[in-house]
């Protein structure tokens, strides 16, 4: 039987009058890469914040690693880590100090060793003793993700991990995500880049107007589509086309 890392049932969330999440249901299998796809403002970040215990849901049942996010947030926090939309690194500290700080906050035995290992793994050894404010966007993102891996969390949330990165840095991040998943970590990522979901995700869910309007593997999503265009399209449908058609837009974003 497959194990479930994240389960969301009938999640609702409003900010004052504005109902952002109307009825979100999803399931993420342990050790898989799950991509939540949606346009800007669709509520992807809200979902991530609720799953990572930063926001309280209005209603719904949400379990992460077997614990309810509202009833036992601390148990959830022990199993997860969050990489937010903006690289949350301390710019005045060096890369090494950033890692040691987080390692201490996770009460690890040997913070220096943990920092050294991650610096090496993320190609930051040379820059380790420079202030993070001197890092390039790609390096900062790498440090940010490295910080999220301190203490080997079972579930990693990546909220638009490649937004604002150049293509090279983006491919680097993708490589890291794949390696992580290969090591058994569950990854929940949000993105507005369809190619990213296509490249990485085992399962994809499309969030639109507060609901998951479609979900499944890429090939399942492709099957959802009527074969009407088969006669003149020889290439496979790209996820982009599926996405835009499902949410009812004809133009590119």
């Amino acid at each position, binding site marked *: 039987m497959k194990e479930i890392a994240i389960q969301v049932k009938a999640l609702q969330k409003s900010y004052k009058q504005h109902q952002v999440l109307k009825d979100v249901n999803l399931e993420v299998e342990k050790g898989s890469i799950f991509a939540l796809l949606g346009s800007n403002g669709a509520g992807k970040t809200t979902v991530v914040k609720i799953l990572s215990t930063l*926001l309280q849901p209005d209603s719904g049942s949400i379990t992460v690693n077997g614990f309810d996010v509202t009833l036992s947030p*601390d148990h959830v*926090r022990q199993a997860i880590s969050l990489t*937010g939309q*903006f690289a949350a690194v*301390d*710019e005045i500290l060096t890369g090494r100090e950033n890692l040691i700080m987080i390692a*201490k906050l996770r009460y690890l035995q040997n913070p220096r060793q943990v920092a050294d290992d991650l610096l090496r793994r993320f190609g930051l050894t040379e820059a380790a003793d420079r202030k993070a404010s001197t890092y390039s966007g790609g390096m900062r993102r790498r440090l940010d993700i490295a910080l999220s891996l301190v203490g080997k969390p079972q579930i990693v*949330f990546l909220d638009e991990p490649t937004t604002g990165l150049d293509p090279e840095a983006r491919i680097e991040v993708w490589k890291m995500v794949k390696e992580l998943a290969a090591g058994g970590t569950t990854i929940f990522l949000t993105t507005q880049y369809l190619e990213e979901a296509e490249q990485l995700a085992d399962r994809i869910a499309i969030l639109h107007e507060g609901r998951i309007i479609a979900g499944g593997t890429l090939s399942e999503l492709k099957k959802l589509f009527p074969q009407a265009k088969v006669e003149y399209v020889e290439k496979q449908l790209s996820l982009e086309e599926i996405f835009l058609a499902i949410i009812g837009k004809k133009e590119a974003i």
Partner: protein
Amino acid sequence: METVKKHFFSDLAVMLGRSMRHISRSMDTIITVCITPIAMMLLFVYVFGGAIQTGSDNYVNYLLPGILLIAIASSISYTAYRLFLDKQRGIIERFHSMPISRSAVLWGHVITSVVSNIISIIVIILVALMMGFRSSSGVLPWLAVAGILVLFTLALTWVAAIAGLSAKSVEGASAFSYPLIFLPFISSAFVPTNSMPTVVRVFAENQPVTSIVEAIRALMSGQPMGNDIWVALAWCIGIMLVAYVFAMKAYKKRI
């Protein structure tokens, strides 16, 4: 269900270490905090001082308590600034998604403010000593002075925390401290209040700075204090408690 063990003090130590590094890597903040009060002290003692009648023969002794309060009031805008940046850059979110004591994040900033103020106050007192400041008081009164200054710092730092947590811009986070820096001017910090017009005088005599200044001055010179010390303590503790409640409210709202 078993609960997750929280380590408030070890989390606090990490937070404290972090912001002390911030301070030591931007020594300019401490220098900026010290320079204005020291410049004011020089100005008032060597330029205006000759024309000011305070009834004491040593104007530096008269002036120093007010100068220290100005230093504290101007330094806390850095706390607001640092908190604002943490909030804006998502660092608070990172901390909050970890199983750590949430209040340690805020307390780290607050205690850092106390430590950096102690450093700048020592620097200012050293300069005052060079300018002829003398105190005949022993260890106990000086401990009392230190206690009042720490309480005053805590009170204003919690006010700064409200500003830092609820501000929408960097400017907003630090602008709140300007009126605080002005309060000592409309008090007995520089001149005795009896030369002021009635309305100003009533305000000056009843605002917190006057009682705090009078209490510190009395402690430093070994004079009897009267009620000033109790009024001063009441102001500091009162402001601190109210600001703490609102700061925590603002903090929880951000989560």
